[in-house]
């Protein structure tokens, strides 16, 4: 197992109280595998990733429990200097908004080359050559001429390619992509996702794709973890989950998206709003919005029941849900 996250817990201390952002998350990724982490805003999907990468703002954030096993080592027990050596070299991250993640006053060549200078101790000149190679690799036209350009001189899609190049620079074993195509137009989104999938195959990397888009997930993922209020409510291979969801929240999400190939009368809408993380409802966090909720859901928090060997659902009534 490349990455194994076990019972991770993260909270934020704020003036108004403690927000429990991540409440016992378990997931794992193998080399060459794509895990999609699906969730709406506030579900804890990005915070989990930040804790794995070691870039969580602490304070106000605090990791209160769990393990992050990367190639067998628990990253949470390492010193900051050791983590820094792993970050970038062995695991890398691609962010949603390339324009604000790139440094506006450094040329893209300098930013790409910095990876080699800092981690590999290369000279500036060699680093520049490598930067051009990388830009070629992610198919930026005229890489040699554009290596001196600044981020604002590139289009959104090209900037996201530079982010991908930067993440790939040191050939990491794991890439975490946090909404990598959300800010892009559909035609460009397809180009970028294709490139990412191709490079992943080539380098046999593990990929964690964090997204809210059920369409993107269906296109690229091997398995899915659906998050709600800081917990994984369903985890399953991608084909199973779309065929028959085993959690009412997953079912609600799938039913509530309009589809290109179908024109419905009225969309199913999950009633209500996601919970405030400072006041997560007792029992199952989804119970106030759930059409199947019974008394037990308001008192007992459901564990991740084993649906089959590769599938889990945190719903007391997963059998009923699975059967529609």
């Amino acid at each position, binding site marked *: 197992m490349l990455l194994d996250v076990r019972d991770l817990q993260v909270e934020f201390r704020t003036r108004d109280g403690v927000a429990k952002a991540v409440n016992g998350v378990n997931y794992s990724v193998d080399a060459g595998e794509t895990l999609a982490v699906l969730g*709406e*805003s506030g579900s804890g999907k990005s915070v989990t990733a930040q804790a794995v990468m070691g870039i969580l703002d602490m304070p106000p954030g605090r990791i209160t429990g769990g393990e992050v096993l990367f190639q067998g080592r628990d990253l949470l027990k390492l010193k900051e200097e050791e983590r820094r050596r792993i970050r970038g070299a062995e695991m890398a991250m691609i962010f949603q908004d390339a324009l604000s993640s790139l440094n506006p006053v450094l040329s893209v060549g300098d930013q790409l080359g910095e990876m080699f200078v800092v981690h590999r101790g290369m000279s500036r000149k060699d680093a520049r050559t490598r930067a051009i190679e990388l830009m070629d690799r992610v198919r930026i036209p005229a890489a040699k001429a554009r290596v001196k350009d600044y981020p604002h001189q590139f*289009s959104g*899609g*090209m900037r996201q390619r530079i982010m991908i190049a930067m993440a790939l620079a040191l050939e990491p074993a794991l890439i975490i992509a946090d909404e990598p195509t959300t800010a892009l*137009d*559909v*035609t*460009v*989104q*397809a*180009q970028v996702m*294709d490139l990412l999938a191709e490079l992943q195959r080539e380098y046999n990397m593990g990929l964690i794709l964090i997204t*809210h*888009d*059920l*369409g*993107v*997930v*269906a*296109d690229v*993922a091997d398995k899915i973890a659906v998050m709600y209020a800081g917990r994984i409510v369903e985890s399953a291979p*991608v*084909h199973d989950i*779309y*065929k*028959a*969801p085993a959690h009412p929240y997953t*079912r*609600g*999400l*799938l*039913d*509530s*998206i*309009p*589809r*290109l*190939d*179908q*024109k*419905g009368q*009225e*969309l*199913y*809408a*999950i*009633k209500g*709003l*996601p919970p405030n993380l400072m006041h997560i409802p007792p029992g199952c966090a989804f119970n106030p919005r759930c059409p199947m909720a019974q008394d037990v859901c308001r008192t007992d928090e459901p564990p991740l029941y084993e649906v089959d060997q590769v599938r889990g659902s945190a719903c007391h009534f997963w059998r009923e849900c699975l059967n*529609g």
Partner: protein
Amino acid sequence: MVEPILEVSGLVKHYPLTQGVLFKKQVGAVKAVDGVDFALNRGETLGIVGESGCGKSTVAKMLVNLERPTQGLIKYKGEDIGKLSAKALKSVRRNIQMVFQDPYTSLNPRMTVGDIIGEPYEIHPEVAPKGDRRKKVQELLDVVGLNPEYINRYPHQFSGGQRQRIGIARGLALRPEVIVADEPVSALDVSVQAQVINLMASLQSDFELSYVFIAHDLSIVRHISDRVGVMYLGRIVEIGRDREIYDHPTHPYTQALLSAVPVPDPEAREHRERIILAGDVPSPTNIPSGCRFRTRCWKARERCALEVPLLAVPAEFRMTSGPAAHDSACHFAEEKTVVPPEGEGNGPG
């Protein structure tokens, strides 16, 4: 035929690019909208889709008179709104209202919800006399599914979906006939999007509204629209009824756009054909000659660089009455099914 409620012809908006400080001279123009025609019928929803920078939001702003067109006509019930007196224009503006994209920046954080929704009555006092306004605002809150007792709260006390409901209530306050909605759900989470779309659909039948619904999400546009126009670099390249556009597209850009949309069905990924366009959208300051899509089109030939294709039913489909016979601005239009036909996918629901 019944007269359309809103009719747009030859609409153009160019923003001049100038050089020099004291003696400004025009060196070019951003051609945001470059010749758009469409008609909106009473009670119908016209969806306009396109990628960022295609001019769809500029069209929206011109429809509600927030921007003045450089050229072209906007007719409301047959009258050119560019030629109306100030007084007549005011009553037209009352009837065409807008719902904005970002519910976080389009509501004044220092005003209560009651003041925000009631503000249109300050400008058009004839709609609701002073003593009556509070009651009217509470009715509107109820209509959009918010608790009428929230009237004294401030925007920050609401979630994104609730804020968008406030924006919709404000748009409804003057009982308009047309609502122009510019990306009304794109800032919202999936589960909340569905709630707002359902609300807009039910308000349409309750209040007999006509919608111009602008969005980049093709699935949402299909869901809500009767007719759909596809924009590229300031022009409509294809327009027709929703089935015609989604199931029988004839313009290569529409086909590429549709094929790029991820479909939430992993079974579909193996046998779906994807057209991946090369490159980026050209700059609107420097629009390609002839067909503006030719730089990214896999079918482009010499003719495409020389001749601007007109938005009309392509000659080869003119004799047929099938779903491919709709307006498409391409010299080499041909039908191509890119979205798997309905019912073939085995998704849930």
